[in-house]
């Protein structure tokens, strides 16, 4: 132990970790991606600053208004949104980002206190804390301007409220981190998050449908919720300030004490997780129990599809199995129905002018187009989910043409399934699409699909990007792919919409399928040409494929 003259100092350890993080940041700027990342951070940081300062002014004005008008208890109305933002934003953001792996810190001789301090410092640097802190500062200034005597007490209460928020965020995050450590729970979380995002789109139609009738119900709900909110941190903090403003020192102190009790409970619950982490708990997904080895078991036979070679069938089977095991991807299958439901709710309201209300016969084409758009996620980056598996494709004796063909057949199968679901959905929500519209839509799809598959196959090999179905935020294609696919969609949908509009205008709907079938001949020829280029392209892009997908 030569040279080790004293126990490691927590302050030196914290300084060392801060320096490492700085060096990681500096080294990240060596690449163009790192420089772009810095640029993004500057843009986001500026937005946060503007949002924070603007919010602080707004919140300050609100606080000034309530306090100067003797309605300090209404401060709860300002503190609740801050509280909600502070708690929910980091959790929502965790669906997009990697969580902090505390095990990296544990290999160093950190004592428990230093470990807790580090965790809290990490937490204190997130945008929610910065914004929440700025907004509370705005409220404090608003209160001070309205009633200078309240400044000290309000500062104490808001500081306690801010600390409580910081600890509660850490507590929630520590537990969410525990759940997100497992693939399955991570997927469930991603699905819930996705559903949450979609449900926001229901708000508009719901409000337009029930809005005028909901005011008394909202009042009743407000009356019921009020006592509950008073017993929770934002309500308690507002009561503490309001009581002091009214000269009720005892009540104000009791409210602050109650905030303290909340703080103690939160610290206790947080410390359960932190202590477990500090002890080095293992959240890996390695098998927990090893059952005794069984004798040779029968392995199910692979699929057999008449007319398809073994390798193409194997790729088709593999692709469909992959999709069936991805919660978020399965969810995209029902998304067109959810969107139709949204349109349906909007239409149920008697307000005129709804697109599908004016043209209900377009329900099926719109749903089919939406399904095709969703499919571009897969088509334009069709090796993204394979990850390291690309090495197998590169080393196997199967031509890439067969691999791509198998993948495209899987895409077409998914699209066919989606369109069936959409057809049934349109029939239930609106009315069954006419035969002419059904044929026109199907022939339009016959034109649009080969174009998308052809361009998608080429882009998938030229600019691949690793994606993970189970995690949101890791399903994005490269910027180039996004740009090109956007252009293709504009061209294809523009052409299809124009054809359909002209056919409807001249009341000759049958013209549309004829035109689409003619276009389909060209798009199939283009697909075949692209398929012929696939092998050469894959060989030429071996390094890009391996380096991008095996990260």
């Amino acid at each position, binding site marked *: 132990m030569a040279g080790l003259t004293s126990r490691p100092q927590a302050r030196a350890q914290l300084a060392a970790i801060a320096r490492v993080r700085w060096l990681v940041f500096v080294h990240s700027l060596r690449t163009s991606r790192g420089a772009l990342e810095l640029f993004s951070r500057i843009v986001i940081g500026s937005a946060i600053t503007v949002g924070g300062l603007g919010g602080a002014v707004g919140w300050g004005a609100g606080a000034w208004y309530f306090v100067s008008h003797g309605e300090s208890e209404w401060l709860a109305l300002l503190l609740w949104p801050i509280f909600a933002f502070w708690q929910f934003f980091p959790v929502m953001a965790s669906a997009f980002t990697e969580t902090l792996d505390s095990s990296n810190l544990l290999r160093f001789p950190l004592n428990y206190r230093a470990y807790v301090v580090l965790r809290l410092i990490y937490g204190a640097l997130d945008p929610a804390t910065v914004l929440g802190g700025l907004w509370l500062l705005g409220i404090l200034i608003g209160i001070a301007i309205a009633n200078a005597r309240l400044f000290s007490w309000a500062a104490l209460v808001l500081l306690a409220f801010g600390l409580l928020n910081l600890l509660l965020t850490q507590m929630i995050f520590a537990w969410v981190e525990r759940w997100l450590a497992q693939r399955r729970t991570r997927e469930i979380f991603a699905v819930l998050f996705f559903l949450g995002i979609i449900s926001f789109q229901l708000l508009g139609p719901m409000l337009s449908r029930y809005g005028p009738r909901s005011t008394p119900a909202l009042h009743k709900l407000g009356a019921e919720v009020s006592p509950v909110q008073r017993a929770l941190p934002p309500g308690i903090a507002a009561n503490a300030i309001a009581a002091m403003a009214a000269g009720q020192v005892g009540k104000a102190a009791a409210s602050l004490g109650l905030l303290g009790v909340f703080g103690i409970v939160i610290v206790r619950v947080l410390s359960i997780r932190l202590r477990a982490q500090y002890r080095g708990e293992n959240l890996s997904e*390695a098998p927990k129990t090893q059952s005794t080895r069984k004798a040779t078991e029968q392995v199910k036979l692979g699929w057999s599809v008449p007319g398809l070679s073994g390798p193409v*069938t194997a790729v088709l*089977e593999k692709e469909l199995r992959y999709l069936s095991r991805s919660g978020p991807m399965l969810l995209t299958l029902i998304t067109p129905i959810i969107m139709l439901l949204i349109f349906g709710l909007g239409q149920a309201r008697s307000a005129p002018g709804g697109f599908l209300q004016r043209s209900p016969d377009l329900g099926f084409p719109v749903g089919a187009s939406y399904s095709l758009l969703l499919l571009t996620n897969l088509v334009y980056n069709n090796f993204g989910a394979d990850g390291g598996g690309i090495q197998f494709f590169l*080393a196997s004796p199967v031509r890439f043409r067969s691999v791509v063909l198998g993948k495209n057949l899987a895409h077409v199968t998914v699209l066919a399934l989606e369109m069936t679901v959409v057809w049934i959905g349109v029939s239930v929500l609106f009315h069954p699409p006419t035969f002419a519209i059904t044929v026109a839509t199907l022939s339009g799809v016959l034109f649009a699909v080969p174009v998308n598959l052809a361009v998608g196959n080429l882009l998938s090999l030229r600019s691949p990007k690793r994606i993970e179905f189970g995690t949101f935020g890791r399903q994005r294609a490269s910027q180039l792919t996004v740009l090109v696919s956007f252009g293709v969609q504009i061209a294809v949908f523009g052409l299809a919409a124009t054809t359909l509009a002209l056919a409807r205008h001249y009341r000759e709907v049958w013209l549309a399928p004829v035109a689409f079938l003619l276009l389909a001949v060209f798009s199939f020829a283009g697909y075949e040409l692209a398929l012929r280029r696939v092998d050469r392209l894959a060989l030429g892009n071996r390094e890009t494929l391996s380096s991008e997908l095996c990260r």
Partner: protein
Amino acid sequence: MDVPAIVTEGLTRRFGELVAVQDVNLRVAAGQFFGFLGPNGAGKSTTIKMLTGLLAATSGQIQVLGLDFAEQMVEVKRQIGVVPEGMGLFGRLTGSEYLNFVGRMYGLDRETAAKRAAELLDFMQLADQQKKLVTDYSHGMQKKLALAAAVIHGPKILFLDEPFEGVDAIAAGTVKAMLQRMIARGATIFLTSHVLEIVERLCSHVAIIHRGRLVAQGSLEELRAGVEAQAASGSEIQEPQAAEKLTLEEIFLRTVGGQKSAEQELSWLG
């Protein structure tokens, strides 16, 4: 005269300014258990990637079983098995689905693929994990699965990049026995490993690559004789050491010039 399993001539790979592999002339006879060694960053993985079609060579030629790799790539790939550095697994398939898939991709019929998949899972002691997704396997289990996938079609040449990394001692023993059985039946195995004891025990022939260049190639005895001859002509090797039979580790260290760093002493450590 037997056709050699692998022959390379002037094999070179550049990454921009960096020459990762330069003018490598390899010759691996059929039926050899061939160890390909080198320090970190020497060019081992780059070479094995070029030999298996994962990476294009900048220049030079590769012949596998008498076939020109560039001209008959698909035919060559049909006759080789590979465990690449990244293992090439599909995480969202179960173990049995993956082996079934690989078998079909190598042209096995459904029944044969399923039968061999079951046998391999049992052999690799993965039978009780066959319904678990590959992504949920431990690293060692994934390695065993990758090995099983590499042999499911009965390849004539097996390329293994660090096959024993992360594999437990029991499974390693099983795998070694399997590899030796393959050699006995006439297959060729081309293996890279940092564990020189394993290479010494398994391989009959060895090549050493250093800074992208092939610096030694031959049977273990030939390499040993070469190093000893060099030692006898030089003065840096002490007599008692030269008199003993050199281990592969000693041969390796002297060939790549690692002797000095191995003998360096960190006075403050222990």
